[in-house]
C-alpha cells in the first residue's frame, strides 16, 4: 500500500510542481518518488497485502514486477540529458507522465480484477501516447498516432474479452473457472489484447515504428517498464486460466513466432534503435517461455530485471548519440574513443542481451529456460535457444559497428548531468548481478506461486 500511495503522491506533486518550479526540480521529485516507492516495496517485501475489498492485491509477484518498472523509470529519467536537453527536451511534463505510467503499470500488476487491469492499462498507455510525441516532430507524431490507434484497438479487444469473460463467469475477477466457447473466446481476447502491449508476434507491428520514432529515453521506458507491466497482467490471466488445450498451442505459437520473427527481422535493420526494437520483440518471446513452467513468476521477474537493465543501458547509450533521426550503424563507429564510458556500457549491454555469461542477461535466459524445462517443454527450449544464435549475430553486428570498425573521426562525446551516473550504475548492475546471480534472484524467489 505504501508504494501505491507514494506513487500517487509523486504523480500529484510532479504534475503541479512543473507549473511553479524548473524542470530540474520536477525531475528530482520524480526520481525521489520512484526511489521512495521502491523503498516502500522493500519494507514489505515478500508479504501479501490486500485493500479495497481485494481489488488491490500487492503480492510478491506484483512487488517484483513493480520493482522492474521502477528500475526502468529511474533509468529513463537518469539518461534523458545531453543531446536532447540542448534542444529544449524534455519538457517538465515528461517526468510527470513517466510517474503516471509507472503508477498505471503498478496498478495493472497488483490486481486480479480485470476492470482494474484496464484502468491501470489506460493510466499506463495514455501518458505514453503523449510521451511518444513529446519531441514535437514528424517522426514523433507518427509514432504517437500509430501507438494510439493500435493501442486503442488492443484496449478494445481486451474490453470485449472482458465483457465475454463476465458473460461466461458472471464476474470480473480472475480465477473463476469457466468453460464453453464464450469462455475460451474471452480468454483468447484478453490474452490478445495484452499481447499487443507485450509486443508478441503477430501483435508487434507497432513496435519498430513507435520505438524508432519516439525520443530515445521514451523508447527506453517503453522497452522496460511498459513491457514489465504488460507481462504482469499477461501472466496473471494465464495463471488463472491454466495452460490447457488451445491456450497452450496459442502460447507456443506466439513464443516461437516471436523469437524467430523478432530476431530475423532485427538482423536486416540498418538503424540501431529499430534493431533494438525488434530485439525487444524477441525478448518478449523469451520472457513468455517461462510461462510454460510450473511457477513462472520468479524467472519472468528476473528476466525482466535483467532485460530492463541491459536494454535500458543500450538505449541510454543511444540517447547520447541520437539527434532525433535515429542512429545508423555507421554512426556508431569509434564509440570507445569518443567516450570510454559509452563504449563500455554498449559492450556490456549487448553481450548481456546476447545472453553471454557472466552478465545478467545469461542468467535471465538460463532461468526462463530452466522454468520451461521444469514444465517439460524441451523442444520449445531448443528451438528458442536456436533463435538466440540469430540474435547473437546482430548483437555482434551492433558491437562490431561500435568497436571493431576502424574510423578516423572521433568527435568526443561529453556526458553531463545524471547521464554518466545512470550509465555507470546500469553497467555495474549488469556485471554484478551476472557474477552473483543469487543476489538478484533472491528478490524474486520470495514470490510464491501465482494465485490461480
Amino acid at each position: 500500500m505504501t508504494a501505491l500511495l507514494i506513487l500517487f503522491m509523486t504523480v500529484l506533486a510532479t504534475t503541479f510542481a512543473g507549473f511553479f518550479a524548473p524542470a530540474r526540480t520536477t525531475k528530482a521529485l520524480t526520481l525521489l518518488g520512484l526511489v521512495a516507492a521502491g523503498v516502500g516495496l522493500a519494507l514489505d517485501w515478500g508479504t501479501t497485502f490486500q485493500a479495497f475489498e481485494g481489488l488491490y492485491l500487492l503480492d510478491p509477484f506484483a512487488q517484483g514486477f513493480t520493482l522492474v518498472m521502477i528500475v526502468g523509470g529511474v533509468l529513463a529519467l537518469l539518461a534523458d540529458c545531453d543531446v536532447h536537453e540542448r534542444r529544449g527536451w524534455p519538457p517538465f511534463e515528461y517526468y510527470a507522465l513517466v510517474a503516471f505510467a509507472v503508477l498505471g503499470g503498478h496498478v495493472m500488476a497488483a490486481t486480479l480484477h480485470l476492470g482494474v487491469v484496464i484502468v491501470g492499462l489506460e493510466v499506463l498507455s495514455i501518458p505514453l501516447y503523449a510521451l511518444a510525441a513529446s519531441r514535437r516532430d514528424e517522426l514523433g507524431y507518427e509514432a504517437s498516432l500509430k501507438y494510439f490507434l493500435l493501442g486503442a484497438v488492443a484496449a478494445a479487444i481486451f474490453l470485449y474479452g472482458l465483457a465475454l469473460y463476465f458473460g461466461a463467469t458472471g464476474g470480473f475477477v480472475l480465477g473463476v473457472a469457466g468453460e464453453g466457447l464464450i469462455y475460451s473466446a474471452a480468454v483468447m481476447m484478453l490474452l490478445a489484447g495484452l499481447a499487443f502491449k507485450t509486443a508478441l508476434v503477430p501483435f508487434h507491428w507497432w513496435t519498430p515504428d513507435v520505438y524508432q520514432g519516439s525520443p530515445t529515453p521514451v523508447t527506453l521506458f517503453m522497452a522496460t517498464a511498459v513491457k514489465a507491466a504488460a507481462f504482469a497482467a499477461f501472466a496473471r490471466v494465464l495463471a488463472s486460466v491454466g495452460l490447457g488445450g488451445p491456450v497452450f498451442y496459442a502460447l507456443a505459437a506466439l513464443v516461437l513466432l516471436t523469437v524467430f520473427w523478432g530476431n530475423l527481422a532485427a538482423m536486416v535493420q540498418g538503424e540501431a534503435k529499430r534493431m533494438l526494437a525488434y530485439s525487444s520483440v524477441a525478448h518478449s518471446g523469451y520472457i513468455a517461455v517461462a510461462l510454460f513452467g510450473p511457477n513462472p513468476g520468479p524467472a519472468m521477474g528476473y528476466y525482466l530485471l535483467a532485460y530492463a537493465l541491459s536494454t535500458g543501458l543500450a538505449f541510454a547509450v543511444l540517447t547520447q548519440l541520437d539527434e532525433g533521426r535515429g542512429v545508423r550503424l555507421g554512426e556508431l563507429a569509434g564509440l570507445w574513443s569518443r567516450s570510454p564510458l559509452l563504449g563500455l556500457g554498449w559492450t556490456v549491454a549487448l553481450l548481456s542481451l546476447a545472453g553471454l555469461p557472466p552478465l545478467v542477461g545469461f542468467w535471465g535466459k538460463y532461468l526462463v529456460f530452466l522454468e520451461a524445462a521444469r514444465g517439460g517443454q524441451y523442444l520449445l527450449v531448443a528451438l528458442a535457444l536456436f533463435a538466440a544464435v540469430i540474435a547473437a549475430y546482430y548483437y555482434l553486428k551492433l558491437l562490431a559497428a561500435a568497436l571493431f570498425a576502424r574510423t578516423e573521426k572521433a568527435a568526443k562525446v561529453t556526458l553531463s548531468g545524471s547521464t554518466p551516473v545512470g550509465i555507470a550504475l546500469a553497467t555495474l548492475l549488469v556485471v554484478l548481478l551476472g557474477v552473483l546471480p543469487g543476489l538478484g534472484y533472491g528478490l524474486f524467489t520470495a514470490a510464491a506461486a501465482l494465485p490461480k
Partner: protein
Amino acid sequence: MIHVAIFLPLVFGVLALLRPTGARALGLLGAAVTLVLGLFGYAAFLDGASAAYSAPLLAEAGVYYAVAWDGVGAVLMLAVVITTFLALLAARDVPPAMVGLTLMMESGLIGLLAAQDLVLFYVFFEATLIPSLLMLGLFGGAGRIRALVKFAIFTLVGSLLMLAGILALRYLGGAPSFLLADLADHPLGGVAGRWAFAAFLLAFMVKTPLFPLHVWLPDFHAENHPSGLADAMGTLYKVGLFGLFRWTLPLFPEAFALFQPWLLALAALTALGAAWTAYAQTDWKRLLAYGALSHMGVGALGLFSGTPEGAVGAIYLLAASGVYTGGLFLFAGGLHRRFGTLDLRPTSGLAKSAPGLAALGLILVLAMVGLPGLSGFPGEFMNLLGVWQASPVWTFVGFLAVIAAAAYALGAYQQIFHNAPDKPAPDLDAVEWQWGALAVLTVVFMGVYPKLFTGPLLTAAETLVAAMGGGR
C-alpha cells in the same frame, strides 16, 4: 588457493586494461604468479591435498560454485598457465589491451577446467568467448569481422543447444543439482539421452574441433593478431576433448555406445583430412591451424575408442598440443616480426644466419611431429594404442595422419631454414631466448617424464571407462 588461481589473472587483466602504460609488466607479473600458483596447485593435488569447494551460486536453481582439481583438470591447467606465461613473454609488441584480454581468458580457462558444476562450467566456457571475440575483433586482420562472425556463430550454435541439453539432462535424468557427482549418478539414456548427447556433442565438436564443424578454425587463426598471442590462447580454448571427457561421455554412456562407430570415423576423417590440407598450406598460421586440427582428430580417435589408454592419450595430447602448438604460433609471430609476413614461400635458408631460431623451430616442430622424447609422442602413442583395441582399421588411418605430420611440418621447416637461397635474419634476442628456453624445457620434460602427468590421468580415465560401462 584454487580460487586465487582462477580469479587472480582476471584481476590482473582488469588492471592491465585500466593502466595501458604498464600493461606488459602487469601482465607478465600476473601470469608469472598464476604459473607459480598453478605449479603449487599441481604439487598439492599430487599430494592429495585438493578438496572440493562448493558454495551456492543460485541455489534455488541448483547451481553451485563448485571447484576442485582432479587429474584431467589439473594437467590441462598446467598447460594453460605455462602457455599463457610463454605467450605473454613472447608477444611483446602487442596492443596493451590484448594483455588484459589474455589474462581474462586465462581466468576463464582455469575456471572451466576446475568447475565441478555443469552450469558453472558452462558459464566459464562461454565467458571465455568474450575476450576471445574482443581480441579478434579489435586487433585482427582485414577479414576479422567475417572470421569473428563465423567463430561466434559456430561456437554459439553448439553451446546454446548444449544449454538445452544441460537442462534436459538434469530434469529428465532426475539429478538434484548440476554437480558432476550428482549428474554422474543419474546418467540419461533412451531417446532423450540421444538428443541431449547430440547437443553436447555439437558444442564440443565445434570446440575440438572435428570435421565438419572445424571451418571457423583456419580463419580464426589467419585473421588474428600476427603476434600469435591470440592464437596461443585460442589453442588453449579448444577444450572440446576435455568437455567430452569430463562432461559428455560419462553422462551419456548409452548414447555414446550407439554413436561410437560414427564418431570414430569422423575423428579419423578429421585427422587425415586436416593433415592433407595442412600439406597444401603456404601460410604459417593456416598450416599450424590444420596441423593442430589433425592432432585433435588423433586425440578424438583415442578418446572415442573407449579405452583408458586412448582417453589418457587424448588429454595428454591436448595438454602437450597447448604448449607446442601455442609455442609454434608464437614462433610464427617471431617470423612475422622479422619479415612482416606469415607466408612461407619468400622465406628460405635462415639456418645459416639464425641457428638459434632454427633450433627452437626444429624442437617445436619435432614435438608436433611426435618424436619420442618430446611432448607430442606419449599422447599420440597412447592414443593409437587405445584405438588399436577398438578398431585396427582406424588405427591405420590415425597412423597415416601422424606420419603426414612429418611431411607438412618438416616440409615447412625445411623451406624456411634450409632451402636455397640463404637469406639473412637476426637470431634469437634475449626475450626469445627466455621464452624459447622455457618452451623447450616444457616440451622435453613432458616428453621424457610423462609419468608425472599420466598417473593422475589414468585414474580419471579408468573412472570414465567404468562409467561408460566398459572397463577390464
